[in-house]
Each structure stands twice: as structure tokens, then as C-alpha cells.
């Protein structure tokens, strides 16, 4: 669908009272609440043009339906990038990645994807196109409306175009992988967090055997992504290896060729689903509490006789726990009972993946955020008829 067709379709649906479901690459469809069946499904993948890459200015502008890998490849021609890290990058679209508000494990270093948005064009429910921001890297002219559209799951408007500031690509990339014996975990994680040259991403993993590199066994493992200049990556390698050694971690393996793919496999694991017999919860928190939260969630699941795979983002504190069973019916019963325990530990944890039918009856977004009344008022203001992605977002937005 072209932009023009999109505008007309949305305007006519809105005036006829038809509801619309918006899809990008459809990769995060199991993140949060499933949308109730809509009258019309709209895909943004027809909006796939990179509009400009002003590489001397370190800015670019793209239509929202462009696939993330195509977007990244185009920027890479001039050795630039935007740190948008979501699972399934080949299928995911730039607009979908931003609309979902998915948080990058590299954000402690580069900032959030939303911080790179310098302008946007959004199609509102009544069919009008509005712009926010511009093509300059600093801008305080009026409200920063892009902040509102980014991470709103299309419930306030359909993102049709995004302008970004870009970064020069790091010279070098490397992945370090090591086994992580239980007794070394706390110290190893503390060492990594305090490392003078921080890794671009750092994960503590238990399970996800087929998805993520490295031997798992009973110990779990650690996966580190290093980015920077040649000399800095070498220095970080030396520092981190010896720090991990001091913490009691045995051998650390170095991956240079395929370091990025190795990182992508971690991203993909965050939503890797076992179909109807798994659900993955994501709990956000502080780096200092992440290990404890991960352990508490795992223990709660194990108490309900569920299998678990755990992925902890050491630098940012995000915790992903996939709970599963061999049989989908048994799974549904157990997870329903376990959900209460999970919400006690992490009230605002969100269901990030999993196709078990039971998820319909669980509150996928967790406890409502404190600003829910204002958020509902915003939804009413922007989409009074509830045309766009109704019920898709937190608190039924």
C-alpha cells in the first residue's frame, strides 16, 4: 500500500467505524496483548523507501516499512548505524521496532532507539498526516511528539516515516563467551558491570540451548559483545578475561568472525517460542537487582514444575524468563497458577513471547502504569473512535 492509499484507507475506516490492525514485520505480535480481531489489517511494508541518508550530517530519513537489515545495510555503506536492536531483524521493520518500544541491550552505551529519532511523520486515525521534529540533531521547537508515537504500538497513529541521527560504526566487533559456574555468577556479573571499558552488551544465560551460542550445561553461560576501536576492543578483551578469571570463570572463548550474528541470536532468543507450550516474561528493572529477579522468577516457575530458560541483560537489568512444559495442556494449567507468583515478584512484567492460548486470560501487560488515566485520555484525544490497534497496548489502550 502506498502512503496515499494508506491515508485514504485509514480515513474511510475511521469514518465508517471499522477497526484497523497495523502490522509491520509481524515479528513482535506475541509481545503484549494480542489485538482483538480487527475489521481491516494494514501492513506498512509497502512504505519501504530510505528517503535520504545525509551521511555528512549523520542523519537519515526512512519510511517506516523498511526492513531493519536493509536499513542497516544502506547506512553501513557509509560506515554508519542506528542502534535499533530487536529480535528477527531480517523481518522486522524500522517502524515496528520503534512503535513497539523494544529496548536495546546496547542502550546503556548508545542510548535508546527513541533517543535517535529526530523527526517523524505519523498518520492519525482521521487520515491526516502530521509531522514532528525535523532533520536536525537538536530541536526544542514545540512538544517532542515523536516521543509519544514511539513505543505507542500504533494506538495513537501509524508511524509512516522516521528521521534519525546516525552514529559512526565501531571499527571492530567481538563476542566473548564463557561458561558461568553458579558460584562465580555474582562476582562475574559485578566485575562486568564495573569494567572500565564496558561491553556493548552483556548477558547471563541459562538454557536457550539451541538458540544462543556457547555450552550451557548446568552452569549457564555469559555472552559479551565488545564494540569500539581495534585497540579498545583488545584492551576490553584483556580486562574482561582477567576479571572473569579472578571471579573463577574458566576459559573465555573469543568469536571475531560472526560476532554480530552471535549477538543477533541472543536478540532472537528473547522471543524464541515453543509454540503453545511456552510463555516468555520480560521484567525490566535495575542492573543491580537483575540477577535476583531472574532467580526469583526461575524459582517461582520451578515451584510450579515449569521448565525455564533465563536471559539477563547485565548492563541494563532486563530479565527474560521463558517458562515451558512438554505438553501444551499441562503448560496452560501450570502457567495460570504461576502467573500470580510472577506478578508478585515483577508486577509490571510483560509477556514477550509464546503462543499458548491461555495467554488470552493472563494480563499480558501486567499491572497498569501509574499514568494510565492520562494515557487513556491521550488515546481518546488522538483516536476517539478506537480505530487504531484497539486494545493492543497496556491498560487496554
Amino acid at each position, binding site marked *: 500500500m502506498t502512503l496515499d492509499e494508506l491515508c485514504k484507507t485509514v480515513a474511510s475506516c475511521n469514518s465508517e467505524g471499522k477497526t484497523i490492525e497495523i502490522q509491520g514485520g509481524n515479528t513482535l505480535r506475541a509481545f503484549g496483548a494480542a489485538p482483538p480481531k480487527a475489521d481491516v489489517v494494514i501492513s506498512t511494508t509497502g512504505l519501504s523507501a530510505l528517503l535520504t541518508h545525509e551521511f555528512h550530517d549523520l542523519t537519515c530519513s526512512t519510511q517506516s516499512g523498511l526492513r531493519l537489515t536493509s536499513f542497516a545495510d544502506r547506512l553501513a555503506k557509509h560506515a554508519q548505524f542506528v542502534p535499533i536492536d530487536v529480535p528477527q531483524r531480517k523481518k522486522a521493520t524500522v517502524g515496528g521496532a520503534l512503535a513497539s518500544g523494544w529496548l536495546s541491550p546496547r542502550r546503556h552505551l548508545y542510548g535508546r532507539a527513541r533517543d535517535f529519532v529526530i523527526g517523524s511523520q505519523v498518520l492519525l486515525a482521521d487520515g491526516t498526516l502530521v509531522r514532528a521534529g525535523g532533520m*536536525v540533531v537538536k530541536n526544542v*521547537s514545540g*512538544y517532542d*511528539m515523536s516521543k509519544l508515537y514511539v513505543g505507542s504500538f500504533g494506538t495513537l497513529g501509524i508511524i509512516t516515516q522516521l528521521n534519525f541521527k546516525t552514529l559512526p560504526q565501531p571499527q571492530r566487533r567481538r563476542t566473548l563467551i564463557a561458561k558461568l559456574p553458579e558460584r562465580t555468577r555474582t562476582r562475574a556479573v559485578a566485575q562486568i558491570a564495573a569494567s572500565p571499558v564496558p561491553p556493548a552488551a552483556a548477558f547471563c544465560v541459562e538454557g536457550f540451548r539451541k538458540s544462543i551460542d556457547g555450552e550451557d550445561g548446568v552452569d549457564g553461560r555469559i555472552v559479551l559483545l565488545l564494540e569500539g576501536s581495534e585497540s579498545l576492543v583488545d584492551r576490553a578483551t584483556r580486562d574482561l578475561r582477567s576479571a572473569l578469571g579472578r571471579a573463577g570463570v574458566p576459559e573465555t572463548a573469543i568469536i571475531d568472525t560472526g560476532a554480530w550474528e552471535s549477538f543477533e541470536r541472543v536478540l532472537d532468543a528473547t522471543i524464541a517460542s515453543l509454540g503453545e507450550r511456552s510463555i516468555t516474561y520480560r521484567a525490566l528493572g535495575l542492573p543491580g537487582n537483575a540477577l535476583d529477579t531472574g532467580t526469583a522468577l526461575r524459582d517461582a516457575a520451578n515451584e510450579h514444575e515449569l521448565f525455564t530458560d533465563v536471559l539477563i541483560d547485565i548492563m541494563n537489568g532486563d530479565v527474560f524468563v521463558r517458562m515451558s512444559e512438554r505438553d501444551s495442556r499441562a503448560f496452560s494449567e501450570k502457567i495460570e497458577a504461576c502467573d500470580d507468583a510472577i506478578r508478585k515478584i515483577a508486577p509490571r512484567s510483560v509477556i514477550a513471547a509464546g503462543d499458548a492460548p491461555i495467554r488470552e486470560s493472563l494480563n499480558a501487560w501486567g499491572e497498569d*502504569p*501509574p499514568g*494510565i488515566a492520562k494515557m487513556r*485520555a491521550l488515546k481518546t484525544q488522538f483516536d476517539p473512535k478506537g480505530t487504531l490497534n484497539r486494545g493492543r497496548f497496556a491498560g487496554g489502550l
Partner: protein
Amino acid sequence: MQRLIDALGADAVKTEPEDLSVYSFDAYSQGRLPKAVVLPAGTLDVAAAVKIAKDCAEPIVARGAGTGLCGGAIPAQGGVVFSFARMNRLLELDARNRRARVQPGLINLELSRQTAHAGLFYAPDPSSQKTSTIGGNIGTNAGGPHCLSYGTTVNHVLGLEIVDENGDVLQTSVEDTGYDLTGVLVGSEGTLGIVCSAWVRLLKQPESVRVWLAGFPDVETASEGVSAIIGAGIVPTALEMMDHLALELIEAAFHSGYPTDAGAVLLVESAGFEDDLQTYEAEIERIVRGAGATSWRSARSQAERDALWAGRKGAFGAAGRVAPNYYLQDVVVPRTKLPRALSAVETACDSRGIKVANVFHAGDGNLHPLLMYDRSNQREAAAVIDAGNEILQAAVDLGGTISGEHGIGYEKRGSLTRIFSTGDLAAMAGVREVFDPRRMLNPEKIFPAGAGCGEVR
């Protein structure tokens, strides 16, 4: 009035005309005399005072240190001014997670000072950082020289506690599910709510810092230098330009060590890891020399670096030596358009016989022409306003914007239509409608008044 005194205490409410007068100004202009100034001691005081103001249908203006340059803090309709002079503390430092909770009246530089012992600092550093407050910085989404690589205030605010126009307290966090209220509240210039505390992100102090100074024959070649550095894929921590007149002003006032024989200089700072800085130093020198730099100097000590920065950050104050008044414009253009923007500034000022100095964030494309004049001379004052408008329009024509870090405030609200359509503004008005339906929070700011955009007032 009595209700305010009953709720907050007599010390916390000012009503004497001479007190009120002080709070009717900011660094741009004067508004009306407020009916009262309140100095709340905490969130509950703020909430109580907002409820009283609402009952009395008095508009509310929250104010930091009043260093704003576009009239954002002036009480345009009088009403009740909220000063945060008593809410000025660092409430909580969470060094492990590199964050702090602060009250809005905390002075920007104090935050870095009070967290330095933990090896941390607060990155946004507007030139006013010795006096301006975190609350005010949040209101304008303040930038500063170092936001080239660190980003502006909004990139460093993790969550807010605000009091809304009803006097209700609301907590927001960037990690909450739901809409990013924090993101839209930052930079809303006090029109959506009153910030009572904020969680902010702190950064680890860099291992090493280098400051270099490159002299150029003129601003055009210096602009080439900027494009060449950025184009080579190097983003320094700060990349500032000063033209000849600015250098003379700074040297006369501060003796910072700037070369007064240069047509323009670039002040370049890189912070990070020693390994990288050595490479950068050689590379940046090669690039700027290739672009036409005639001199190159590396600050050898902390004292030398501090002196250079003191000159840069004090530049605007130094203008007082040349003219009784100055008008500071704030526009942004795409970085590669800097030479054209600078020549537009020159044309706008020369054609009106106005003296202009340029001291600005070149790496961001953020210009700050300083137009010097005498306010008592009506012809001069009018010429400066004309020139300012011409510069504004030139930036827009070059694909830029009308404010990069100072805000729209009272001054530029008529100009928002230069960059946004009625529809774009109506979307912003939709947000205002949710947070401040009666338009009582900092009225007559940001949005144009009058026909065409009546709904956006």
C-alpha cells in the same frame, strides 16, 4: 492569598511588590507582576498550592533560576509563580545503577559536584549550569556544548514526579509500559505539569579528556573543518566555534588563552579512553589542517582546559563590554549548511549595521549569533528584532529549526507556524488538552495565539 499562607506557611509566600517584581523577569524579558510567589518545600506543598491556584482561577508559572532566554519563565498573565529555591536537594544517589533522584531546584553543576565522589557526573551542561536548575533544564530540554555526543536533557531523564493542573501527583518512568509521558513532559516548558522530582541518569567520568584548539582564517574554513571532522565519522564530545569578535570579547574578559589573531577557532573536546584519544588527536589535527586550519594547540593541563571552557561558557556575559544589550538567537541547521547559515547571519546583521559575534555548538549545527545593541535606542532595538527574524527564517529555509536548546517560550511562539502545519500543531494541542485543558499552566507560551491556530493557544 491567605489560603496559600495557611497551606505553605508565611515564609513560603511572597506578596510584597518588590519581591513580586523580581519573579516577573527572566533573562529574556519581563511579564506581568504575579499576585503571589510561592516557595514550596516539597511535592505536597506544590500540590496544595496548585489546588488553591486552581480554585482561584489563577494561572501558574513554574520557574527555575530564570536564566531562560526566550521568556519561558515570565508570568505572562500574572497569577502564581512557583519558585523551587527551597526544593534544591539531591535526594538519593544510586551509584550502583548510575542514577540519582533530585529536586527541581538543584543547580545543574551542583549535581555533578555532589556525585563526583562516586566517579559520576550529569552530562547535560548548558552554559548557565552554574545557576540554572535541573527543573528548568527539564522544562526546556536544555542542551549544552557536550550534548553533541551525550545528548540533551531528555536523554538523561529516567522518570519524573509531577503535579498536574488538578494538584494530583503523577509518577512517570521511561521504563513503564504505556505511553512515554516522560519523553513528552521534558521540553514542555511547564505547560503540562510541574516537575517536583526527577530520576536522572549519571555517567561514569571519562578516563581521559583532551581539549584542542584549531585556529582558522575565517568562519567559512572553520565550518569546513566541522564538516570534515563529522564527515570522517568522528563525533567529538564537544565541537564549538567562536568567530573573531567572540574571541576578542572572551580574551578581554577572561584571558582564557584564545588566539585573537584568528578569524575563527574550533574548540574540540574528546572524552573517553586514552587509547582512542591518541588516535583522535592525530586524526583531527590532520583533518582540520586539511580543511584550512592555520594553528593547532592541545591543552596540556586541566587548568588550561578549564580556562578555555570558562571563556567559552562565559562568552555571552562578556558581550556587555561592547554594547549595553545583546540579543541571543538560537537556531539549528543541518551541519553541512553551517557556512550558508553563517553567511545569512552576516547579511542580516551587516545590512542593518548590527555588530554580531558567533559562539556556538558547531558540531550540532546549533547557531547562537549574539546581536549587540542599545535597548534605549528604539531604531537599534527594532533592527535587532528584524535581523533575528531574518536569521530564523534563513534557518528554516535551510532545512533547520527555530530553537535547538533555549525553547520557544514567549519569544518565538509566533514562529512555530514557520515549521509546523496547523495539523501538526493541533496534535500538540491534543496533548495540552489532556494535561492542561484550561490553559492555566504557563499560559501564552510555546503556542501561537490568534486566528488560524486558535485551538492551540
